[in-house]
Every structure is written in C-alpha cells, then in structure tokens.
C-alpha cells in the first residue's frame, strides 16, 4: 500500500488536509479583515500619536539646529581648557545668523537653564559684535564679558549637543543634571513633582479602598435580596453611572460649599459651630468625597456580577455545619468573591489614577493630581515636552496595572451596566 491511496481526497482531487488548512486560513483572514478598519483607524489616530509623545518628550534638537557649526568645531574639544579660536569663530557666525532671524532669544533662554547668567552675556554680545573686527574672535568675544573666559559656559553649550535628552523625565522626579554632568536632586523646598506623584498614588489607593468598603456591602445586599427590590436599588447605582461627570461634580460643589447642605447638616446636629464651618471643598477632602462617589459604580458592578454567581445554599451549608454567620461569611462567601474584588479594585484604581476633571474643580491646590499638572503644562506654560514626559510616565504605570487586570480578569470580562 503506498501513501497516495491512504490520503483522503476531496472531490476536486486536493488532499483533504490541505483543503481544510486552506479553508481555515481563509476564515482567519476573513475574521481579521473585519477588525482591520478599526485597528488601522486606532493605529493612525491614536496609537502612533501616543508613540510620538516619546520622541517629543526626549526631543532636544533646538540648540543642535541653532548652532550647527559650533558643535562641528567642538567635536575635537576635550572640555578641559577654553575651546580653540575655531569654536569661538563658528559660534559667532552661528549666533549672527540667529540674530538676523531674530530667534536668538530662545537660545538664550535654553542656555540660561543650563547655566545661569548665560542669557545676559549673550544679549551683551549682540550689542558689541557689530563693532567686531575680522579675525581673532576669541579675544574679542572674551572682551565682551569675562564670563566668556569661564570654561563652564562652554561646557554648558557642549552639554546641549545631543539631540535627545532625559532632562524632562528627571524634572518629573525632581532631579536635574548639574554643571558637572551629574544627576542630582533639586533642593528640598523645590521638590514638587515627587510629592504630586505620591499624592496621586495615595488618592488612587484610598479611593479604591473607600469604594471597596462602601461597595462590598451594597453589592452583597443587591445580590441577596429578591429581584424586585434589587432592580429598584440597582437604579441608585446605575443612575449616577449614566449621569454626566460634570453634573455629578457640580452637585458635590453645591453640597460641600461652606453654606452648603452638608455643612448645614453638621451645624444642625451640632457637630460644628455655625460661624466656624469647615472648608470641605477646594482641598483634598473634596477630591476624596467626590471621586469616591463617582467611581463607586465601577466597584459595585463587577462585585455584583460575581456575587450573583455565589449560591446561597453554600452559606446555609456552612451554618448547618456549625459555622457562625461571621465564620461562614469569612471562610466561604468572601473567598468566592475575591475575583470580583480584584476586578473592581483594578478598574477603580486605573480610572482614579488618571482623574482630571473632578480634582480640577473641587480639589483646590492641595487636592490636584498629576493629570492636572499635565494639563497645566500643556495649556499654561506650554512646556509640551514636559507634559509628554509626565504623561508617558503615568501611562507606563497605568499600563502595568492594565496588564495585571488583563491577566487576572481578562479584558473581555469588563462588565458595563
């Protein structure tokens, strides 16, 4: 018996195995083609722009482009003693072009960041360089200001030579490169970003904890009471979920203001003095209270869907075997709901860590988070590369949690409503 007779053939004479594989491949391509439009759309309008944040955040080509001849001449310079005449001459010729194009201001600002006092001597150079004579530029430039004789100023220029820099990332963790090229922390009183990262983390963790502490009991109630009551109570969870975020934030602004309902209530029950109403908004308290309420449905819904699957007879069995209600709850019910706790907590944490609107409106100065700082640098200081750097750092953190979420819960198990 040879192999050819063993093979099963389809009606058109192709081996069945081959034919099946072909059909399988065709099905794969068909399924993939359906996803392609969305995938392409997202790749172009979303994924690649996020990738571009990376180049934007490390981009430092400005000085490189402004002083091309200088850097060329500096290649041979060892950085120990004053650079040669050639470097001085190329710097002057580069600088003249910039002054002609009226873009020298940006260079001054950038170099001033690298070395204090650079901007003023460059401005002085503009006035004096008109009267410069041909040749021996080194001497003439030094005669403008004695700082040009200081080698550290020239080292500062050389430091800006690489077209890429991690300076923005260092700034985001309160560090910078000092004159000797070493990475050091900024002085104690000016460390603001580390504090902001820690506060963001703290708020996200506590909001997750609060939503868990409040969400667990009501999810349990919703899952155990008869359907007709639970449907009604479910509205209390779903209505805020569907209501505009700004509307919910607005209602907290009304409730928490000094003459607001919450303060009225505290005065009524005698908790606080009428003339001494506490400030509950425009600080971290407002951020906590509002964010917890806004994110609570995202905890309740996954918990509820898990608790629905826990059979009530398990608790009864536990009790009949002699467990007190507390013991049966702790040993039977709680372990069965941990997957829901994981899903809800990760979702709330991911959402809380990037929250922007609510902290910006009710957070004041002490209740703002890293997102607010990103928006500030995008809109006010226009330091877009710094905003991109902070955004990417936040993104890496969120993606790490997202990855854990995907491993533990599975992304296709997100429950909506």
């Amino acid at each position, binding site marked *: 018996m040879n192999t050819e007779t063993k093979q099963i053939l389809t009606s058109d004479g192709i081996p069945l195995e081959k034919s099946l594989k072909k059909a399988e491949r065709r099905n794969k391509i068909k399924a993939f083609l*359906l996803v392609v*439009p969305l995938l392409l759309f*997202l790749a172009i309008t*979303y994924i690649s*722009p996020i990738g571009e944040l990376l180049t934007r955040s490390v981009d430092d080509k400005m000085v490189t482009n402004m002083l091309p001849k200088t850097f060329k001449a500096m290649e041979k310079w060892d950085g120990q003693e004053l650079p040669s005449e050639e470097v001085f001459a190329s710097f002057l010729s580069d600088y003249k072009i910039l002054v002609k194009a009226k873009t020298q201001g940006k260079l001054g600002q950038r170099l001033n960041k690298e070395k204090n006092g650079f901007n003023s001597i460059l401005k002085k150079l503009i006035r004096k360089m008109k009267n410069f004579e041909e040749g021996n530029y080194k001497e003439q430039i030094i005669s403008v200001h004695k700082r040009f004789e200081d080698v550290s100023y020239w080292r500062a220029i050389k430091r800006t030579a690489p077209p890429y820099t991690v300076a923005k990332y260092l700034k985001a963790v309160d560090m910078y490169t000092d004159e000797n090229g070493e990475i050091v922390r900024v002085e104690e009183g000016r460390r603001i970003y580390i504090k902001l990262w820690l506060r963001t983390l703290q708020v996200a963790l506590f909001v997750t904890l609060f939503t868990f502490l409040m969400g667990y009991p009501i999810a349990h109630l919703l899952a155990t009471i008869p359907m007709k009551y639970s449907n009604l109570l479910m509205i209390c969870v779903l209505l*805020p979920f569907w209501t505009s975020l*700004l509307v919910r934030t607005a209602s907290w602004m009304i409730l928490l203001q000094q003459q607001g309902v919450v303060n009225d209530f505290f005065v009524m029950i005698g908790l606080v003095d009428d003339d001494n109403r506490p400030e509950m908004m425009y600080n971290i308290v407002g951020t906590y209270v509002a964010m917890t309420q806004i994110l609570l449905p995202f905890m309740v819904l996954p918990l509820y869907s898990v608790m629905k699957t826990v059979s009530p007879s398990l608790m009864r069995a536990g009790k009949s075997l002699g467990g007190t209600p507390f013991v049966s709850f702790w040993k039977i019910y709680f372990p069965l709901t941990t997957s829901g706790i994981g899903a809800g907590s990760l979702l709330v944490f991911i959402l809380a860590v990037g929250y*922007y609107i609510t902290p910006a409106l009710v957070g004041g100065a002490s209740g703002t988070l890293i997102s607010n700082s990103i928006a500030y640098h995008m809109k006010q200081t226009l330091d877009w590369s710094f*905003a991109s750097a902070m955004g990417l750092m936040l993104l890496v953190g969120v993606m790490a949690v997202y990855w854990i979420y995907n491993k533990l819960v599975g992304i296709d198990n*997100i429950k909506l409503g």
Partner: protein
Amino acid sequence: MALPSYTETRYRIWHYIYLSICTFVFIYLIAPLFVIFPLSFSGDEFLIFSDGMKRLDPDAFSTRWYKDMIWGTKNPWGLAAKNSLIVAFFATIGSVILGTLAALGLSSRHMPYKGIIMAILISPMIVPLIISGVAIFFFMAKVGLAATHTGIILAHIILGTPFVVITVTATLSGFDHSVTRAAASLGSTPYNTFMKITLPLITPGVISGALFAFVTSFDEVVVVLFLAGLDNTTIPIQMWIGLREQLSPTILAVATCLIVMSTLILVTAELLRRRSERLRGINR
C-alpha cells in the same frame, strides 16, 4: 430581609448595622443628584436653599433659570447643544460601524491574536483621558483638524469604540453560530445572512453600545478642552467653564436637563439588556 426568629441578639444587631451602612451608601450615591433639581428652580441666584425654599413658599421658586438657558442674552447653550448633538451623532455612527465590525471579527473562533488585539482596541477606555487628549491634540494639529468638528468627531470615535466592542462581543458570546451555518447551507449569501440573521439577533448589543458611545461623546470634556475652538464649544465645555468661573443656577437648569436625559438613557439601556438576556436565554 426578615431574620429567622432564632437569630442571636448580636447577629441581629450586626444585621441592622449592615442595613444602615447600606442605606447610608445608597443615599451617598443618589442624593447628590437630587440637590440639583430643587435648586435649579430657585428664585434667587445663590446656590443655597433659602429660607423661603425651606418653607416651600411658592414665591421662592421660579423657572427663570430655564428661561435664561433657552432665551438668555448671549448665552452659549444653544450653540453648545447644537455642537454636542452633531458631534455625538456622527461619533456614535462611526463608533458603531467600526466597533461592530471589529466585534464580529473578534468573536469568530478563527480570529488570530485575539487577546492582544482586544487589549489594543479597548485601550482608549483604559488610558487616562488626559494622555489621550494630549496625543490626539498633537495628531489633529499636525493634520490640520484641531478646532474643527471633524477633529472632535474623530476623537470621540476613538473614545467610543471600546464600549461598542465590549457590548457587541458580550452579545455575540451567547450567539449560536449554527443559525448562520444553517442559513449558508440553505443558500444564503454571507451578506444576506448578516442582514437577516446576525444583525437582528445582535441589535440589542449594538444599540446599547451606541448608547454608551453617545453618552461618552456627549459627556466628554477632557479631550474637547484640547481640541475645541470658539466655534465648537460643547455642553460639557460650557459647564466646565461655568463651574470654574462662577456657579450660576443656569448651569443647574442645564444639569437637570442632563439628568432627565440620562434617566431616559438608563431606562432604555436596562430594557435592552433584559431583552437581550431573554433572547439569549440567560436568566439572572
């Protein structure tokens, strides 16, 4: 939740503590929405319950803020509402088409790299909005679509598709594929099978995905803050400006309208969910 008569006292006490905790949480969840409603009918412009309102004096109430919202001089709400509706309408259509196609592909058992592709498609929902806003702004500025309706619509399609993908894949997870095979064996073309068999069965999922996409677009403020110019302010942008600068009762009138709208959407979504579960034979 009646307790059995043999319950010990300490568990009885614990049970009532548990119920009062639940009551407190439900009040915490829902009460803020009800503050808006009476204050939007306030007679004066302070956002506090005046003595007159506490006595339910009819003179303390008025509809002037609603009139101001609709007819007020140089008020921005008309333009904002028009823009919001246009943007949300087209963003919903775009999200539904792209999202449903992708969900159909993802639900096929032949789909390669399902996990990673799903993770990418859902990412706009997970990535913090501020990062999405910054990235989309840079992109739109580069292609010249910043401060245009088209730019905002495209941005909202990005943000809306994950919801459609999730809801439609959820509907398709209970989908009996033998019905499409039956149709094919009876000589139906794939297009006909989709229109006559698949689409009617997944409609509830598609519509609830559409509702999510619509609400996402209608409520979205972070990305629009980066993209919108003066001509394309939306309702959320105007609310944001109002809340930052000066909390006026007109905003509460708008907020009340939005709450009414979300209630209607919630009811629709719930009815659809139940219908879909009934169709798929799931009883919860």
